[in-house]
């Protein structure tokens, strides 16, 4: 309950509500640019109003403008405006460069390394570990501990994607065949929405993910759960569902650790039931949504690589029970 309360209102996607040092620097830059630009706008409008008013006054008084006096005045005004523009642009340039310099180096503290691979249209998330059995893969949900820098190794499987979690850090492109690195640190626990920020095809808009920032203890517990192979349920319906999964089309693309399903074309489903959303943040992870997604994904995300699956109602029911047992 406390967690739910803590997370409520935090499920947002705003660069102006930073939850870490990276995003805070970006937010400061935004506010700085906003304030300077507003001041310039107000000054320009004020000068325009003042000039118009003075000209009207002069006309009312019947004064005639002295050409000899007007010329040097004009030169002076233009010089001042040009100088101010150059100074402001220089200030922007220096600030921008200094923000870039502050944010680019990965902090020297030993960071957590996560490999993120972009796919059309979902995110593969692999947690690197020194031992092979400690490594695990999940999808569309990135758990990070608070107060520790997280280093991301970014790749793409097909086209250029871009990862963006406004509350935590700026964007970084995922380029096929070229490894990029990216990092952020979350200081406030919460649920932050991320989104692909580079148009990548039909379902670009439905290529979202969630970052779950939680206390180091909670994170460690989550990791130890994710490192386990899939639970083998003794329930007869779930066993039947497992059989449907392994003999049907599901196993052609998805993998479940601890079973013979090992294809990596689609998202890893070993702990599917522990995730909050399905189809890359498109639907909540409920039984109904899962059923709709399995039977007719092309209605929800036209063009997605998941094909429609015609299953017998009994088989679908068993499959759903099995998938929901994958905690």
């Amino acid at each position, binding site marked *: 309950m406390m967690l739910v309360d803590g997370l409520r209102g935090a499920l947002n996607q705003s660069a102006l509500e930073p939850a870490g040092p990276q995003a805070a620097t970006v937010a400061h830059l935004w506010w700085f640019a906003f304030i300077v630009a507003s001041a310039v706008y107000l000054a320009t409008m004020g000068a325009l109003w003042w000039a118009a008013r003075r000209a009207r006054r002069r006309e009312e008084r019947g004064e005639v403008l002295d050409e000899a006096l007007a010329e040097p005045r004009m030169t002076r005004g233009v010089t001042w405006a040009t100088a101010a523009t150059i100074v402001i642009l220089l200030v922007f340039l220096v600030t921008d460069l200094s923000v870039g310099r502050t944010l680019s180096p990965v902090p020297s503290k030993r960071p957590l390394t996560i490999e993120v691979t972009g796919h059309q249209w979902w995110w593969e998330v692999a947690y690197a570990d020194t031992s092979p059995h400690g490594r695990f893969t999940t999808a569309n949900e990135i758990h990070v501990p608070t107060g520790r820098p997280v280093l991301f190794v970014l790749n793409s499987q097909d086209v250029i994607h871009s990862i963006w979690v406004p509350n935590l850090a700026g964007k970084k492109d995922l380029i096929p065949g070229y490894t990029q690195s990216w990092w952020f640190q979350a200081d406030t626990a919460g649920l932050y929405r991320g989104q692909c920020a580079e148009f990548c095809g039909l379902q670009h808009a439905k290529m979202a993910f969630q970052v779950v920032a939680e206390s180091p203890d909670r994170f460690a517990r989550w990791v130890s759960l994710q490192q386990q192979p899939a639970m083998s349920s003794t329930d007869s319906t779930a066993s039947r569902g497992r059989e449907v999964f392994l003999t049907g*089309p599901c196993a052609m693309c998805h993998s479940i650790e601890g079973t013979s399903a090992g294809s990596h074309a689609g998202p890893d489903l070993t702990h599917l039931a522990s995730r909050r959303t399905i189809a890359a943040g498109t639907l909540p992870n409920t039984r109904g949504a899962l059923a709709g997604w399995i039977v007719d994904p092309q209605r929800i995300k036209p063009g997605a690589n998941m094909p429609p699956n015609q299953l017998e109602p009994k088989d679908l029911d068993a499959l759903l029970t099995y998938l929901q047992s994958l905690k």
Partner: protein
Amino acid sequence: MRTTPTAPRPAVRRLAFGIGTIALLATLAACNREQRRFRESPPSTSPSAVRVSALQPGTVQDTAHAPGPYDDVAYHVSEGQRLFGWYNCAGCHANGGGGMGPPLMDEKWIYGSAPEQIFNTIVQGRPNGMPSFAGKIPTPQVWELVAYVRSLSAQNSTGARSARSDHMMMYPGSGSLQDATTPVKSFHPPAAEMP
């Protein structure tokens, strides 16, 4: 000598109109290649008793074939190319060149190269190695694979074929499959056609 400017006009206009109409029709005809059909369920074919090789006793029986549902749609052909890799067809057929499995770059196949024959080969499996994918690959995806496999030997329309394949080509030096034509003779000595 001056020619009157009005004299050639009707002819020129008629010519321009004709060219315009032809261009428009050509454009309309090309529309089909990009039509993406996400939510349809094309029929699966029933097992046919077609004998296309002389491996079995009796004469060759091969009648007219209906085109595959996706043969001329570039999008579905490229989807078939993706699935060809995903489902590890390349593991045996090596991007069409053949390895453990027979090559797919010519159109003379043991079990037939017509759309429904390829469909049945994928779904039913074939002796000596080809597994059955019945219940494993959904029907629309099987048809996409059929369309791609047929494009390897240039059996579908030119407009639907991939122009950017990095894989093996029909003829050495042909820049892409787009340039490949149906082979007039087999590259392999006759003995190589028997597995």
